[in-house]
């Protein structure tokens, strides 16, 4: 990790959902920290708890246990004014660019409104300049794009608007939940590059949530692998992906399509041969943490 103090941190957070007679552990003793100028990737399959982590940060869910820390201070129980500061500091980019913009409003409205709310002192020409600036950051032409409605834009353009909207309030943290999964491959890279540029130029802390591990490798310095609400392996991206130690991580990496391997040549044959066992055992609670190397940890799978 880095020596800088984290902007945002989850400290031992748990969240349980009850459905009928069954309980789902969507987050189990989850701890991680976001640092300025760095991207942390959260990868896992659907239902692993990735989006629950995002919702806990966005305050859609309250943790059952543990704390959400903003600049080292617990967010729970903070004053309304502090909550407003939190809301403008932490912004989200959603998965679906087709449903996250309001179809009855122009692009101008989508960018102007967050500025009115969070920067009321910004008026007239200054606000106009700020709008032009966020649009140029996402490489869109203000004159062309501002009068348009969401349906007039392509998926990639809409996702750029979603990012511009998030940037409009000068955030410090961006939570991006599968921001490229609904885009075509040729458009995807542009969005990933944008995330990388923002991180470097604006010193943003980014949480990049995805099931696409190759894209995580492209944007993130650090990575966490989540399964059944538990982070099973985490640390430096190259170390975790190059030398995976948790059986679930190894299983996941064996299953990810890799054009350099024929279908019959797999990376970790052993793990693919015991999928059911790995799924069952990895879903058990494990409080022990083992250090694999510098900035590389696992929760060993119970035997």
């Amino acid at each position: 990790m880095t020596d800088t103090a984290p902007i945002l941190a989850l400290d031992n957070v748990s969240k349980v959902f009850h459905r009928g007679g069954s309980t789902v552990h969507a987050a189990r003793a989850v701890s991680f920290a976001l640092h300025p100028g760095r991207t942390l990737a959260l990868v896992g399959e659907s239902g692993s708890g990735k989006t629950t982590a995002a919702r806990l940060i966005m305050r859609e869910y309250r943790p059952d246990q543990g704390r959400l820390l903003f600049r080292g201070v617990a967010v729970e129980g903070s004053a309304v004014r502090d909550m407003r500061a939190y809301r403008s500091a932490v912004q989200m980019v959603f998965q679906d660019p087709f449903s996250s913009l309001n179809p009855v409003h122009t692009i101008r409205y989508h960018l102007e409104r967050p500025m009115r709310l969070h920067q009321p002192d910004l008026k007239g020409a200054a606000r106009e300049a700020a709008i032009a600036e966020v649009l140029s950051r996402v490489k869109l032409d203000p004159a062309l794009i501002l009068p348009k409605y969401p349906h007039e834009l392509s998926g990639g353009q809409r996702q750029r608007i979603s990012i511009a909207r998030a940037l409009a309030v000068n955030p410090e943290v961006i939570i991006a939940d599968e921001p490229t999964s609904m885009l075509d491959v040729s458009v995807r890279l542009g969005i990933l590059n944008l995330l990388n540029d923002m991180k470097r130029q604006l010193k943003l802390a980014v949480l990049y949530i995805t099931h696409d591990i190759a894209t995580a490798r492209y944007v993130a310095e650090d990575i966490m692998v989540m399964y059944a609400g538990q982070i099973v392996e985490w640390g430096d991206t190259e170390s975790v992906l190059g030398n995976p130690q948790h059986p679930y991580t190894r299983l996941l990496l064996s299953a990810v399509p890799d054009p350099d391997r024929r279908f019959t040549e797999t990376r970790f044959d052993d793990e693919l041969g015991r999928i059911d066992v790995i799924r069952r055992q990895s879903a058990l609670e494990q409080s022990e943490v083992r250090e694999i190397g510098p900035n590389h940890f696992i929760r060993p799978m119970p035997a």
Partner: protein
Amino acid sequence: MSDPVLSIRNLSIDYIGATSDFHAVKNVSFDIGKGEFFGLAGESGCGKSTIAFAISRLHRPPALIRSGSRILLDGRDVLTLDDQALKQMRWREVAMVFQSAMNSLNPVLSIERQFYDVLKTHTGMSRTEARARAAELLKLVDIPADRLTAYPHQLSGGMRQRVVIAICLALNPKLLIMDEPTTALDVVVQREILERIHKLRQELGFSVLFITHDLALMVQVSDRIGIMLEGELVEVNDAQAIYRTPQHDYTRKLWASIPRLTGKPIAEGATQ
């Protein structure tokens, strides 16, 4: 290619509009050999699904197949078949797994009943015979026969997808068309399903037309690949050649825009 199972010649399909037509498929020709796994790749809107629908004659207006197009299945032109002949052809010669096919099962019928529908309609099998055949087919996709009495909602997405594949194999088709069959599934489940298909193809000898936007996956599983761009088939070659020595500029650009899991995060010459 000698004796292809499917031979598409000069296929052109337009979507007829009020003021102008949209040329979805432009003069496309390719063959799929016996037992071959052929991948058709391209971005959304490139016409790949339109081709898949046309092969089983499932296209509907405003889609119009232009004259001069030919779709030869075992030498017989699908486009000339009447309704009766079409009925004979579907399932028996060509079966199709749709995108998010796991949601194409009827929610109020048991799995057994869904097998029975196909088997009775096409072979006149009795209930008992159909039950035995269905159990056999489920075994092919690693699902225990006792799940025959289950309803779709009682199965996971991956299991439902495997049930659909088993139903598609019920009449031993020569060609299995799979349109984004695993897009809605997690990678581990995707891997399990494709491994099954891989084995079954070797055992049963059917050919596969596999449609996806996931190029990495396509290279892994296919023998040959066709790349589509805006209705045109711009490159067809062996899977490894498509990956290692792409000839068309668009194919090269596609590869350059895909982050890698190992080695350099992105290929040289990436633009944007």
